[in-house]
C-alpha cells in the first residue's frame, strides 16, 4: 500500500518519539537510584513514626481535645486538591480542544492517581482506630458526609485510573513490541496490560469512545470530590467552616494548586528526562496563562470568603478572623496570600514571567502557599469554639505538629512522588501515539 508522504514523515517522527521516550524508561541511571533511595528513606521514617502512633495512640501527635484535627486532615485536603489536576488537563482542556495540552495529559493523570492514593492513606493514618476500618463498609451510614467522601474518592480514583490507562494502551503496545531490552517481568506487564492491542481501527474506536465518555464524566465527579470534602467542614458550626462559600472556594483553590504542581512536574521531567522537545517553552507559556486565570478566580473566592465575616465580626467568627488578619496566625496568613496568590498573578501576567525557571519558582510558592492555606483552614477554626476553653493544660490551646506528624506528612508526599516516579519509569510519560498522530501519522500505522 502506498504510504503518503505525510505518513512517511510521520513515521520518521514516530521513530524519533520512540527513541526519545524509550530512553526515559531505563532504570539504570544513578540519579534515578539516588532519587528512589531518598524517597525510601523519607518513607521509612514516616513508617517508623506511624508505628509509634499505632503503639502509643494519637497522643504522639499534637492534637488534643480542642484542636482535634491537625495536619493529617489539612494534608488530606491538600492531596485531594492536587488530584483535581487530572480532570483539569486530561478532561477540561482536552474537551475544549486545547491541543497544546496533549503532552501533559498523562503526567496530570499520574499525579491525580498518586495524590488520591496518598490522600486515602493519610486519612487512614488519622483514624484513632484504624483496626476498625471495615466498620466504615459494614456499618456505613449514608447520612454521613464522611461516607459520601469515601464513595466519591473511590469513584474518582477508578475514573482517574481508567483515564490514565485507556490512552496508555497504544503506548503499552509500543513498549511491548519495541522495548526488547526490558527485563522479563516488565515485558510481561506490558503484554498483559496491552490487552492484545494491534492498532486496529475497531480498537481505537473503543478507547476513543471510552476516553470521551470518561472525560465528560470526570468533570462533575472532580467537582463533587472537592465539594464533598469541603462539606466535612461546611456541615459544622466552626467559625471559618460554617460558610456557604466553602465548596467553590475549595474547588477553585484545587485547580490552582494542581496547575502549580503540574508546572513543577513539567520542569523537572523535561530536565531530567531530556524531553524539551515535547514540553516546550510554549507549554510553560500556556500553563502560565492558565495559572493566572485560576489564581484570579481563587482570589475572587478568597475575597468572598473573608469579607463577609470580617465585615460583621460575629462572636467567635470575629475572633477567628482577627487571629488570621492580625493575631497569632497573621504572619502565616499574609505570607500565604501574598506569595501563594498575589505573587503568581503579578509575575505571570507579563510574558517574561512565563519562562520555565520563573514559573518553577512561582509554582513552588503556589504549592507551599496552598499547603499552609489548608493548615489555616483546618486548625485556627478549631481553636475558637463557641464555649470558652478553660481549665485545660497549656498544650490544648496551641497546636504545633510533633515530629511524628511531620514525618508522616513528609512520607505521604514522598509516597506521591514515588508512585509518580515508578509509573513514569514504567510507561512513557508523554502520550507517544497522540503526538505521532498530531504529526500526521495514521493511527493504524502507529506500531
Amino acid at each position, binding site marked *: 500500500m502506498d504510504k503518503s508522504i505525510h505518513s512517511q514523515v510521520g513515521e520518521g517522527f514516530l521513530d524519533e518519539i520512540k527513541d526519545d521516550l524509550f530512553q526515559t524508561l531505563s532504570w539504570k541511571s544513578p540519579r534515578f537510584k539516588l532519587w528512589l533511595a531518598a524517597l525510601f528513606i523519607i518513607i521509612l521514617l514516616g513508617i517508623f513514626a506511624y508505628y509509634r502512633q499505632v503503639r502509643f*495512640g494519637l497522643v504522639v501527635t499534637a492534637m488534643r481535645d480542642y484542636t482535634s484535627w491537625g495536619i493529617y486532615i489539612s494534608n488530606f485536603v491538600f492531596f485531594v486538591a492536587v488530584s483535581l489536576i487530572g480532570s483539569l488537563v486530561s478532561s477540561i482542556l482536552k474537551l475544549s480542544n486545547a491541543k497544546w495540552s496533549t503532552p501533559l495529559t498523562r503526567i496530570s493523570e499520574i499525579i491525580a492517581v498518586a495524590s488520591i492514593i496518598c490522600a486515602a492513606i493519610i486519612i487512614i493514618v488519622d483514624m484513632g482506630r484504624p483496626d476498625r476500618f471495615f466498620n466504615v463498609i459494614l456499618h456505613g451510614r449514608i447520612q454521613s458526609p464522611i461516607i459520601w467522601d469515601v464513595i466519591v474518592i473511590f469513584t474518582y480514583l477508578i475514573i482517574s485510573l481508567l483515564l490514565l490507562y485507556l490512552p496508555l494502551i497504544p503506548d503499552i503496545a509500543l513498549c511491548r513490541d519495541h522495548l526488547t531490552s526490558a527485563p522479563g517481568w516488565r515485558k510481561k506487564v506490558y503484554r498483559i496490560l496491552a490487552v492484545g492491542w494491534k492498532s486496529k481501527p475497531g480498537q481505537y474506536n473503543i478507547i476513543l469512545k471510552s476516553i470521551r465518555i470518561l472525560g465528560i464524566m470526570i468533570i462533575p465527579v472532580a467537582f463533587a470530590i472537592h465539594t464533598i470534602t469541603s462539606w466535612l467542614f461546611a456541615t459544622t458550626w466552626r467559625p471559618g467552616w460554617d460558610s456557604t462559600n466553602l465548596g467553590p472556594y475549595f474547588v477553585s483553590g484545587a485547580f490552582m494548586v494542581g496547575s502549580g504542581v503540574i508546572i513543577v512536574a513539567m520542569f523537572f521531567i523535561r530536565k531530567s528526562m531530556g524531553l524539551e522537545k515535547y514540553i516546550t517553552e510554549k507549554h510553560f507559556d500556556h500553563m502560565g496563562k492558565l495559572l493566572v486565570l485560576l489564581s484570579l478566580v481563587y482570589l475572587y473566592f478568597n475575597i468572598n470568603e473573608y469579607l463577609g465575616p470580617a465585615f460583621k465580626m460575629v462572636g467567635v467568627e470575629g475572633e477567628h478572623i482577627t487571629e488570621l488578619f492580625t493575631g497569632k496566625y497573621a504572619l502565616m496568613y499574609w505570607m500565604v496570600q501574598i506569595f501563594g496568590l498575589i505573587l503568581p498573578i503579578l509575575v505571570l501576567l507579563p510574558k517574561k514571567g512565563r519562562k520555565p525557571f520563573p514559573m518553577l519558582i512561582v509554582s513552588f510558592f503556589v504549592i507551599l502557599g496552598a499547603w499552609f492555606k489548608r493548615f489555616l483552614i483546618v486548625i485556627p477554626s478549631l481553636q475558637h469554639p463557641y464555649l470558652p476553653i478553660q481549665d485545660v493544660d497549656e498544650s490544648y490551646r496551641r497546636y504545633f505538629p510533633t515530629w511524628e506528624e511531620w514525618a508522616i506528612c513528609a512520607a505521604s508526599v514522598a509516597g506521591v512522588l514515588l508512585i509518580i516516579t515508578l509509573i513514569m519509569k514504567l510507561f512513557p510519560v508523554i502520550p507517544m501515539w497522540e503526538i505521532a498522530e498530531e504529526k500526521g501519522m495514521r493511527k493504524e500505522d502507529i506500531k
Partner: protein
Amino acid sequence: MKSSRKSKKSDRREFLRNGLALGTTALVGAGSAGGCSTPETESSGEKVKLLTTEGKLVEVDKNQLHHLSGDPATRQDARQGIPGKKFVMVVDLSKCKNARQCKVACDEHHNLTPDRPFIKVLKMQDNPKSAPYWMPKKCFQCDNPPCVKVCPVGATYKRSDGIVLVDNVRCIGCRFCMAACPYSSRVFNWGKPDPPVEKHGEVYSPETSSPSTIGTVEKCDFCPDSIRNGELPPCIPACPNGALYFGDEIDDAVTNGFETVRFTALLREKAGYRYLEELGTLPRVYYLPPSNRMFPFEDEPSIESGLYKEE
C-alpha cells in the same frame, strides 16, 4: 428513697404500721386502680413497682423480678432507650457556686482522669457589663444532634429516651463528631487510658462509657446505668447547692436530690432557656438564668478539686 422515719422504739409498732400501709394499699388499690394488673399469688410480702415496656405501672411481687434493671444494657440493647422516658436536665445557674462536686462525682463514677472531664464548669460572662457566672456544661443530648448526623459508622446514636450514647467498640476515632459538636462536649482518648482505679473484668457497655478504650471518643451519657437502678446520675445529688436537676420530661418532674418540682413549671417560672438555641440542635439540658443570686461571684473554686490552674 427514705419515705418514713424510723422510730427508735417499738418494732411491733413498726410492723403494724408497715402491715397497715400495705393493707391499705391493697384495699385502696383494689378499689380504684382500674387498669392495673393484680399482684400474683405466692407473695413474698414485699411489693415492687415496675414500669412495663408499654409504659404501664404495675406492682409485682419481688419474687417475680428476674434480671431486670440493675445491669447496664449490652451493646445491642443499649441502642434501645428505656421505654416511656425522655430524660432531661435543668441547671439552675443562680445556684451554681463552682463547687465542682458534680465533676468530682462524675470523674469517680466513670473512672476518668482530670484531663478528660465529661462535665466542665465554665466561667461565662454574657456581655462586658453583666456579672460573670459559673455554668456547668456536659453533653446536651440534643434532639437534633449534629454528632449523630455525621458519624460515619453509627457509633454514636440517639435513643428513644433522649440519651445520645457512644458505642466504643464501633467507633473508628475519626473525630468528626468532635468537630461537629458546637458545645465542645466530647473528649477523646488520645493515648492509652490511665484510669485512676483499676477495675478488672469490667464489661464494656455504652451505658457506662467504661472502661475507656484508646482511640475512641467519650462524653457525658446521663448515666443510664444509674437510671436503670432507679438512682439519679451521681452528679445530681453531689451538688451541695442543688443546682442540677434531673428527671423525665414525660413524667414532668425533675429533682436535685433535695426537692422535686414540676419540669414545665420550673422552666416557666424561671424563664428556662437552652444554650445557643438558635443553632437548632434542640438540647435536652435547660438553664435557669443566673438572676437573684444570693452570693457574689468568686473566681476560685470553693472546694479544691485538683484542677489545672485557670489562666
